[in-house]
């Protein structure tokens, strides 16, 4: 190895290491640590059979929704960021593109009913998950969360945190159209 190529190595190796390190840190900065990728994507939606909020005598099971594409929106009247996404859900429901089912997570039914009366009810049906057991089955750790479930009952997408216009337009609705075909 010649003297000059040794000298080249002497500064180019640390530089390369530094660049790689910066790249790793840069990518790391862009990650939201609260968005933990769900292991449930592309897995069958966990089964549930829950009472309906507006019709406490009736139950609804995940099984009943097979054959259609649907959204499961986990919400609660005590959840502050649910208010942020709620107008978007109400709007979405009006378009009738995809049915939205609500999972009323660890809530009091009276509060939930009052909340829906006040803010509008976008849900085809709301299911009561009083003790949060179904929430655990769906790996819910931060309300609101929204799952997109296909005709075969497989979870295809999960939104952690409030729905946004971008997420809806760029990810969820295109996927809904594709799955409905």
């Amino acid at each position, binding site marked *: 190895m010649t003297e000059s190529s040794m000298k080249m190595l002497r500064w180019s190796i640390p530089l390369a290491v530094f660049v790689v390190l910066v790249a790793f840190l840069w990518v790391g900065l862009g990650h939201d640590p609260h968005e933990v990728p769900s*292991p449930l994507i592309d897995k069958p939606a966990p089964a549930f059979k829950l009472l309906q909020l507006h019709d406490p005598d009736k139950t609804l099971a995940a099984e009943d929704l097979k054959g259609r594409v649907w959204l499961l929106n986990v919400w609660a009247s005590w959840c502050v960021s649910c208010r942020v996404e709620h107008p978007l859900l109400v709007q979405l429901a009006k378009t009738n593109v995809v049915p939205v089912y609500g999972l009323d997570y660890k809530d009091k039914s009276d509060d939930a009913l009052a909340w829906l009366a006040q803010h509008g009810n976008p849900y085809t049906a709301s299911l009561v998950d009083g*003790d949060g057991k179904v929430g*655990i089955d*769906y790996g819910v750790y931060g309300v609101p969360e929204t799952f997109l479930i296909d005709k075969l009952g497989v979870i295809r997408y999960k939104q952690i945190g409030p729905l946004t216009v971008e997420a809806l337009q760029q990810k969820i609705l295109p996927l809904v159209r594709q799955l409905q075909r």
Partner: protein
Amino acid sequence: MRAILLIGVAAISAAAYATAMTAPPPSAALEARLKKLETELRCLVCQNQTLADSNADLAADLRREVREQALAGKNDVEIRDYLVARYGDFVLYDPPLKRTTWLLWFGPFVLLAGGGLVWWQVLSRRQRAPAAAPTRDPADDARARALLDDEPPA
């Protein structure tokens, strides 16, 4: 008076100690097991806390779930698998060794080996080319002597 008090306190604490020793709660083993398990699991809400440490609502629910499953006779591996199926490997404080975590587990050792290699190279290069002993020019010597002799003592 003081002696009586002291004896009384001693007697009470001895009695308390004796009952604690002779009659441990029947589920002490279970409690210890749960405690250990909970310190190995992460609370998803406050992510740098274990299930055992966290006050979050979800942590309480998950602790309850873990307890119920343990009471139902499930072993630690089954309980851990149950949570991983729902929340992913992130729920484990010790990430499992698999292809996607190789970099995580072995990366530091690779870096250490790289550092060691560089260190070894630098050392061996130094040994190969020992710093040449500084040579002195007799002319410089003479000049220095002249300057020193010239200097009046301070």
